[in-house]
């Protein structure tokens, strides 16, 4: 409709995004009581405890040490329980300033039903902002143990040809930790979505 307003243009979060999004993590203490999204789990959060970690690599293979990563996910039953004190589904982490590694401690989400009757296999939305990224990069992480179900997932079905599908599947590690490295360019470039 011509009467509609235009979405405001995105601009990069820049190299100092931590000041605004995670000030306590970058040494600005005493302003905000806590960095939002830093802790996803409560003692009473139901579900299987997992950890997700990874590194974001640029086209030169260098880790992004200045990125902020957000994740967004359903609860163990596949519901988005945004107002639940036990689990909000949203987390935010800074890449390590030396190694670029980021990490979330969370729960494994359940499969998410869609209104059209399809079911999305367990997945976690991953969103990246950093210097040099003009508009936030939106991807999804899936779980290797759900391989059989993934053939029927309505979002994964859109990744054609299927040669890049594997970039959305985390690698299992010890202690219920999943490794999800993200590649911004090159032969291993991660699939990003336009929602």
């Amino acid at each position: 409709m011509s009467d509609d307003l235009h979405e405001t243009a995105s601009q990069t979060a820049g190299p100092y995004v931590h000041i605004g999004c995670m000030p306590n993590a970058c040494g600005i203490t005493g302003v905000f009581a806590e960095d939002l999204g830093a802790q996803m789990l409560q003692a009473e959060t139901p579900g299987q405890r997992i950890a997700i970690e990874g590194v974001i690599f640029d086209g030169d293979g260098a880790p992004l040490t200045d990125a902020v990563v957000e994740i967004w996910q359903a609860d163990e039953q596949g519901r988005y329980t945004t107002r639940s004190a036990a689990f909000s589904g949203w987390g935010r982490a800074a890449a390590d300033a030396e190694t670029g590694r980021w990490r979330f401690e969370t729960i494994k989400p359940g499969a998410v039903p869609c209104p059209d009757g399809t079911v999305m296999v367990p997945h976690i939305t991953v969103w990246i902002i950093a210097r040099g990224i003009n508009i936030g990069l939106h991807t999804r992480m899936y779980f290797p143990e759900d391989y059989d179900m993934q053939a029927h997932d309505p979002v994964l079905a859109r990744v054609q040809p299927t040669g890049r599908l594997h970039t959305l599947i985390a690698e299992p590690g010890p202690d219920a930790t999943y490794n999800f490295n993200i590649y911004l360019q090159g032969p291993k470039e991660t699939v990003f979505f336009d929602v």
Partner: protein
Amino acid sequence: MPRDWTRQPAARAPAYRSSSMRSPEHARISMPATPTENIGPVFTRDSLGPLDHDLIVNHARPGQTAMGARLIVHGRLLDQTGRGVPGALIEVWQANASGRYRHKRDGYLAPLDPDFGGCGRVITDQNGAYMFRTIMPAPYPWPNGGNDWRPAHIHFSVFGQCFAQRLVTQMYFEGDPLIARCPIVNAVPDQDAIARLIAQPDMEATVPMDARAYRFDIVLRGRRASYFENRPEGI
């Protein structure tokens, strides 16, 4: 509503050198918004402190205030249909009145201000309005093309009512000659879209003998009526 990519920056903007190695080379894969993107995290005022929106004092020593020209920045958070977006979290960060960030990686020779941290946050009211107090940030040089200077700006991180509305942007100030020269600004391919990143002075909101005011409205993607049963609208 689908994103209008003619008004958004391309991933790769050659004059902004940091984007060259950080821009995906494959096209994004298009997908409709699902329940995952039609819902989003909720933040309440309970999670914010009473001075979170006041950068003039929220990092200042007792009895002190931040150095610099005092400002009120305010506006409305709207969606593309023109409706205010209530209850949305806006986070802001900026350099100080000398153009220096309180960050260990900022080595600019301008001084830090002990009374200025540079971060703030606020939740929009029932009409989508927001307001914070701060000081005028200064332009500063940055390593890009040899002699590039950022226009004075404030960074904004905005949550809407669903994850598909998530937005990070920057606000500039009317009349700054560095705006037109900035490779980050010029990554946006549309002049009208750039113009809407520039806050306008708002004399009516000025506090006499205290602070000038700038107005900056932000528009998030619109939500259309859709099939979604327990949440009647989707992107």
